[in-house]
């Protein structure tokens, strides 16, 4: 039986997605990932983390989401394949490959973070930007998708100009487009006011990085631009966006750039550039103002290899998983008190309920973990220290 070549390609892509998911799994669950898996209500709105928390009953919840998100990231290339159906094969492959070769996609696919999910929504909006027929027949669906994008992560708002362009290019009036784009933004503002923890987090972090020099900000933003497009993809994508003079694309690019410039340049923000670079490349090939496709593709591959190698994160897991496993073997229920600074991954990995250490609470606790020295130290008679645990851990006898 002859297998359709698309299935073969999808299969090969899926193997790549599984590789990326397993690579991310080497680092165990990080604190931000634990926040989303456990539906901890800050700093982002609730949609995606609520969906993730519905799978908490799965013992393999972490791997499930790594594989699912990696698969969605990689297989999103089919959206680009579809919008480029009128291109030559060479151009089509170059545009689609730009998504898969972007260092940010390689580094982030399989992580359980919300920036890649936002990027996925943005790719969907790029798809609708070039498929007006879909937008004209179901504008409310696109608007609901936009709402879901905003309610997944606050960074979604950076793509508001892109979404505005989606409706305007499909022929909707300014009034209708405004309604579809702005109403969800207002809703997001109302949600934020109803959840003061989100606002408090933003206010706490608003001054972070402000004290850094202009050069530090420029270098940080520049690195993320580089990773977002693996160098050459970003270069051609940016140049092409500026050439189009399309306000939707340009404004979204400027907003993303401003966001990464003014905030702390976390590596996972790089992927916010990628959908825009891909849209830029689409424009470049659509207007036929591009170098030959296959040689350009070869340059993309080389550039991606260099940037990805240089920007690859360490997958060294922190000690939490090993420490929690040692603890879980000794105690399966009760409270664990933790002294020192700790991340949400403790709440994910530990079978015990996590609280901050104070000596007065040791009476009701089952275990104590001293990441810093437990000060003041509690009375350890009646307690046993776990031998061989990576951090100082005590359990009640």
């Amino acid at each position: 039986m002859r297998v359709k070549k698309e299935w073969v390609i999808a299969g090969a892509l899926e193997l790549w997605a599984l590789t990326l998911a397993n690579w991310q799994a080497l680092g165990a669950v990080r604190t931000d990932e634990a926040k989303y898996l456990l539906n901890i209500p800050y700093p982002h709105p609730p949609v995606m983390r609520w969906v993730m928390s519905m799978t908490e009953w799965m013992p393999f919840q972490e791997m499930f989401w790594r594989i699912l998100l990696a698969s969605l990231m990689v297989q999103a290339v089919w959206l680009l394949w579809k919008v480029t159906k009128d291109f030559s094969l060479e151009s089509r492959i170059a545009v689609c490959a730009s998504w898969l070769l972007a260092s940010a996609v390689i580094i982030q696919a399989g992580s359980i973070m919300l920036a890649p999910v936002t990027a996925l929504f943005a790719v969907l909006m790029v798809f609708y930007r070039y498929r007006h027929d879909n937008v004209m027949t179901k504008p409310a669906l696109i608007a609901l998708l936009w709402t879901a994008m905003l309610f997944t992560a606050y960074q979604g708002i950076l793509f508001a100009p892109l979404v505005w362009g989606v409706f305007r290019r499909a022929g909707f009036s300014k009034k209708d487009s405004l309604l579809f784009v702005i109403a969800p933004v207002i809703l997001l503002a109302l949600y934020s006011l109803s959840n003061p923890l989100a606002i408090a987090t933003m206010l706490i972090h608003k001054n972070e990085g402000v004290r850094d020099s202009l050069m530090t900000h420029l270098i940080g933003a520049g690195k993320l631009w580089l990773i977002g497009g693996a160098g050459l993809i970003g270069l051609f994508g940016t140049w092409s966006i500026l050439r189009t003079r399309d306000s939707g694309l340009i404004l979204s690019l400027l907003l993303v750039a401003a966001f990464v410039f003014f905030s702390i340049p976390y590596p996972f923000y790089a992927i916010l550039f990628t959908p825009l670079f891909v849209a830029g490349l689409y424009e470049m090939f659509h207007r036929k103002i591009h170098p030959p496709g296959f040689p350009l593709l070869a340059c993309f591959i080389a550039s991606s290899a260099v940037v990805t190698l240089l920007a690859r994160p360490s997958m060294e897991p922190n000690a939490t998983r090993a420490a929690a496993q040692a603890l879980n073997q000794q105690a399966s229920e009760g409270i664990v008190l933790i002294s020192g600074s700790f991340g949400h991954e403790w709440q994910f990995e530990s079978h015990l309920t996590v609280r901050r250490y104070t000596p007065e609470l040791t009476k009701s606790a089952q275990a104590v973990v001293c990441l810093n020295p437990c000060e003041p130290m509690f009375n350890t008679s009646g307690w046993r220290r776990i031998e061989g645990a990576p951090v100082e851990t005590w359990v009640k006898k």
Partner: protein
Amino acid sequence: MKQLFGLTMIVLAGFFLWRIWNIHPMYVDGSVRAQIQKTLEDVANREGWLLSNVELKKVSSKDIRLIYREHRKGKDPEKCHVIQLSDSSLKPCA
């Protein structure tokens, strides 16, 4: 579909406005806001709470009603508490 979108916006806006109304004293009165922040920090230090587990339900100039949800894998134990702003005392919701 347009009506569905409009209805979704209105229903969600109504829900969020109701939640905002329940906590509005902390937005309109700076002294209440400061007192709430201090009270929550005092209680969190005393009880070993993680502030990310706190969900404010209702706020007044005298007390705070909140849910403390212990986020963990599986079912999250949660308890409703009322905290008096005057002395940071904690009692279960009625």
